């Protein structure tokens, strides 16, 4: 509803101001249709999604075990925490020059940046999850004779899953933010590239705005999917409906 109001306001503002540079909603739609005709629309979205998927999944695969280990062995956390806390406030974008040196002009550079952006929130959420597991759950698990492995899979993991999920959602938000900036360097496809290329090569502001809208829309859809996970049986107990 508010969206419709904003859309109307946008269309009206373009007409009233008589701007030649800023595109109207129809311009944007036409621009995107043209992109679709040139078979670039789906390719760009696919490339962006692929990069986020790679970087993000690598962060999940590494962040959860590291967070588990750091939560479980406090000595490890004491050793690693200062490093993590120091690296964490560095914007992933600051790594760009290094990423280009290491990975050159390839998919790996943005994937690496997305990985960096999302791995820390996942580690921290998992670690805090483990530390906040009520000791009596672990004690009860041991009392019933669970092996260490069973203790991790049947008690520890289900107990922290809701917190991990929250961490995953935060991490995804950061990953998506970084994607666009990451694609402005090192690659020649994707939604971030679309924006920078449309501006540089002929001031196609209809495509700039179209790219922005696509990024917002895709981000919203993916975030909604992750939120849907909060209603899964395994974690529903921790989220009040």
């Amino acid at each position: 509803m508010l969206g419709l109001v904003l859309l109307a306001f946008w269309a009206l503002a373009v007409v009233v101001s008589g701007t030649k540079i800023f595109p109207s909603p129809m311009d944007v739609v036409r621009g995107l249709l043209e992109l679709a005709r040139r078979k670039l629309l789906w390719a760009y979205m696919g490339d962006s999604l692929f990069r986020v998927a790679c970087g993000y999944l690598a962060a999940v695969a590494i962040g959860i075990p590291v967070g588990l280990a750091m939560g479980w062995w406090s000595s490890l956390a004491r050793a690693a925490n200062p490093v993590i806390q120091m690296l964490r406030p560095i914007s992933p974008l600051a790594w760009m020059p290094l990423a280009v040196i290491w990975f050159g002009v390839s998919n790996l550079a943005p994937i690496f940046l997305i990985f960096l952006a999302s791995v820390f929130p996942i580690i921290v959420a998992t670690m805090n999850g483990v530390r906040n597991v009520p000791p009596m759950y672990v004690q009860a698990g041991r009392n019933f004779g669970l092996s260490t492995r069973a203790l991790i899979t049947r008690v520890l993991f289900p107990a922290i899953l809701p917190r991990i999920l929250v961490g995953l959602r935060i991490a995804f938000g950061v990953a998506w933010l970084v994607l666009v900036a990451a694609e402005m360097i090192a690659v020649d496809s994707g939604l971030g590239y679309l924006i920078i290329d449309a501006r540089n090569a002929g001031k196609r502001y209809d495509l700039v705005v179209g790219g922005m809208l696509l990024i917002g829309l895709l981000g919203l859809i993916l975030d909604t999917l992750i939120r849907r996970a909060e209603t899964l049986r395994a974690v529903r107990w921790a989220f009040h409906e």
Partner: protein
Amino acid sequence: MKVHFDSIGMRFGGVRVLDDINLSVNAGEFVCILGPSGCGKSTLLNIVGGFVTPTEGRVTIDGEPVTGPDPRRIFVFQERGVFPWLTVEENIGFGLFRQKDDEKRARIARYVQLVGLQGFERSYPRELSGGMKQRLEVARALAVDPDVLYLDEPFGALDSITRLQMRRELLRIWQAERKTILFVTHDIEESVQLADRVVVLSARPGRVRRVVDVNLAHPRDLSDPRYIALRDEIFGEIGLAHQI
């Protein structure tokens, strides 16, 4: 003799919490360990449970020294010990991973019945009242058929009416299942209502001040002069403890 405490002493850093605890508990006996807050009751129960190693002495059960937790002896916490991510029946079946499926199902059904949770098999703990959660935890413990139950102020978080009902339930279950029970409480009335014997601990460092035999048949009449006399005797004992 089932459980034997042999000169148990415990200190945390420089603080002595338990001092020379000697006690024998018979098979099938219901023993309450009573003492003021902070006197080391939970520490003592954690030592018999195998979760904490005492700095002095040792505990033996059936003649074997306790070296760690054991599924033959289950610890029951306050209601927060049930797993919130499992349903009632999954909680009860938690410790039954060595049993065959039909055996597991039969036991779950039996203990759902015993603690009166029929109709709530698929419910999650957050949908249950405090008293139901506590019964669930007792059922989860009983399902693995332990010889001994350790209960650490299990009804402490419940309202006083539910607490009375839970005591009656626990006695009924104890009489049906004939487990040895070590029950920690700071509630004098509770100890005299439940126990065969009440072990009165002093303030920290906890020492055994007195062991009181409660030779009253169940169900106990709370206006019976003998009940009142025993209760007041322990009140006197604890009153002294507070003057130290």
